[in-house]
């Protein structure tokens, strides 16, 4: 092995087929409204935790859908569960149950 003074960049691309979709399926089976998000971002805009951190529920939710779940566990901890997102969601996504279910998924799927 030789040190060339640079390394091979890792791909930013989401490799959908290679990703782990168990969490996504788990959530959908427990909270049907999971599929209703249209990515408007209202939840994130009003989020109490988002007011202090980079916690972005819209994106978290989307990343789970894409199977990009490496950061979910650490990110989800920032949620205050206050429910503002639930009140603003135009599609009636049951955001609070999503949060709970994501937690369950992390636990039950040993993620």
């Amino acid at each position, binding site marked *: 092995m030789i040190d060339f003074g640079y390394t091979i960049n890792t791909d930013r691309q989401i490799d959908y087929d290679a990703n782990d979709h168990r969490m996504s399926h788990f959530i959908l089976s427990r909270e*049907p409204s999971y599929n209703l998000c249209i990515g408007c971002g209202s939840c994130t805009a009003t989020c*109490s935790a988002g007011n202090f951190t980079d916690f972005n529920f819209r994106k978290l939710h989307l990343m789970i859908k894409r199977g990009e779940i490496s950061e979910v566990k650490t990110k989800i901890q*920032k949620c205050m*569960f206050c*429910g503002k997102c639930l*009140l*603003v969601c135009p599609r009636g996504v049951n955001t609070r149950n999503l949060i709970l279910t994501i*937690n369950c998924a992390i636990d039950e799927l040993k993620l």
Partner: protein
Amino acid sequence: MTFDLFVLPFFLGLIFLLVVLGIKYSRWINALPKADILKIRNGIFSRKFFLSIREIFFESLLHRKMFKQNALSGWMHMSFAFGWFMLIVIGNIESRVYSGRHVNPPYYPIFLKFFVHDRKVLPFEIYTVPGFFRFSMDLMLLLILSGLVLAFIKRQHSKWFGYQRKTKQTEFDRFALTALWFIFPLRLLAESFTAGYYLGGGFLTNSLGWVFSCFLPVEYLAYPAWWAYSIALGAFFVTLPYSRYMHIPTEVLLIFLRNFGIKTEKNFNSFSEIEVNSCPRCGICIDTCQLNTSACIHDTQSIYFLRSVRQNEVKQDVAFDCLLCGRCQEICPVGINLNAIRIAKRKDIQTLTPNSYSYLTPNQPPIVDVVYFAGCMTHLTPSIKKAMTEILDVTGVKYSFLDADGTVCCGRPQMMAGKIDAAQQLMDYNKTLIQKSGAKTLVTSCPICYKVFKEDYNLNIQVLHHTQYLWQLMNENKISLKPSEKTVVYHDPCELGRGSGIYEEPRQIIKSIAGLMSTEHEKADALCCGGSLGNVQINSKQRNAIQKDVLDELQKFHPDTIVTACPLCKKTLAKGSEAKVEDIAEFVCKALQPTANKKIRKEQFKSLTKAELIGLAIEKL
């Protein structure tokens, strides 16, 4: 003769029951927290003790609450409980009188008529001692049988007894129930047959016995009947500890402990266990639950939840499918702490990753007399914020708007989800802020926040919901309001009403400036708007269904305004309401009399806090 083989089923059954109860109860009591055990020590033979006995008499025997709700159902329960109790009492005395012994084997009084049938009395002879006993014994039996008849009718027409839905019974409960139903008809038969042969009964058994004896070989039928009676009793006793009838003995224990001041708090402990076992599964909680009446959810109500707790198979979706509105708790005839138990269980079944709010670092808020905490929900109903700040400005009180730029949640939602640790972190943060502010009063606009500030923060300052604070300001003439012709209905928020017992202040305020109309469900009986954060399971359709029914009731008499005192209620109701929905703060703000010095005060106050803000931003405590 003082013994016969047939008593065995009863006798063994009784012993079994007593042993099981003995073990269970001692386990539970030993498992209680130290503090609670101390309470018991102090409780025994204190005033509380006798109060409990009184309560047991009125509730467990006479079922007063039941009567209040529905006479038929009351009678049914009373006849069983009281009648049976009296049978035992009178029976014991009677057997002593006959035997002349002070101690008799426990089965003796029960089967007295089998052992003693030598003295003949006339059907309605009550002036002689035996006559009196037999008369009253038969009377009690009749009383119970009347209840039994009602019980049969109830199976078909539960509506007459004030039950909208039938409870889904387990097989085991059905078995116990059948055993129970057989006991007294069999006693009636056994005694009648015996009486029919020996004429040793009272007005009921004798006459019935005579009738039987005309066409039945009663002398041969009596003995088997006594066997059957004994078996029925035995069967019932054996099944009791594992069926819903466990509530009969356990409720007595519960009443004592509760009066001693023991209750379920954050954790599910053995007292909660006792409460769970005291649930008679009457199903009243099903009828009162709006998930049932509005949203067609029939399997998550307290009765089923408690059953799942007792059977150790709590499901997350059941545990979380509850508005925590507290209506069932309010009406529960046994007075079980339903909300507390559910929340405690939510905590237990959860295997959630711990939250971390390390990103929250409290800085120095301005030093003030009053801290105003709007709350998350209020930030989505800015009109309430605006109204409150305007009112506070008018009063000229030195206050600060603690969460003016975005709230850190009060912790109550986490708590309702059973995430106590997470809630604690948030509470610690807010608590530090409030304490640093040096305020003597905390005013919040959100009942959800209010409840947790009041009950769990133990801030040793005055904690008020703005309804209370506004009422206080009015009484101190800090604000003067001009009355209007408006007609108003008031919607009690769950957390403020049932949750915190605040019913009067808002009504007083409204009455003083507008016409308050009453609604079908009010105060402790008030409906939940459906927006509750307590339930994480129901979908928006179900929420809307609940909200619609509530609105229909509130708007029944076309009020000008629906006033409530909770941002979440306001937001939920406003969605579908034709009448204007206002928070009481807005309502008051609109009625404010313009005061001359309003402006000046505002200025003074503003400049003051600004200066402080700058000063205090630098030096931290």
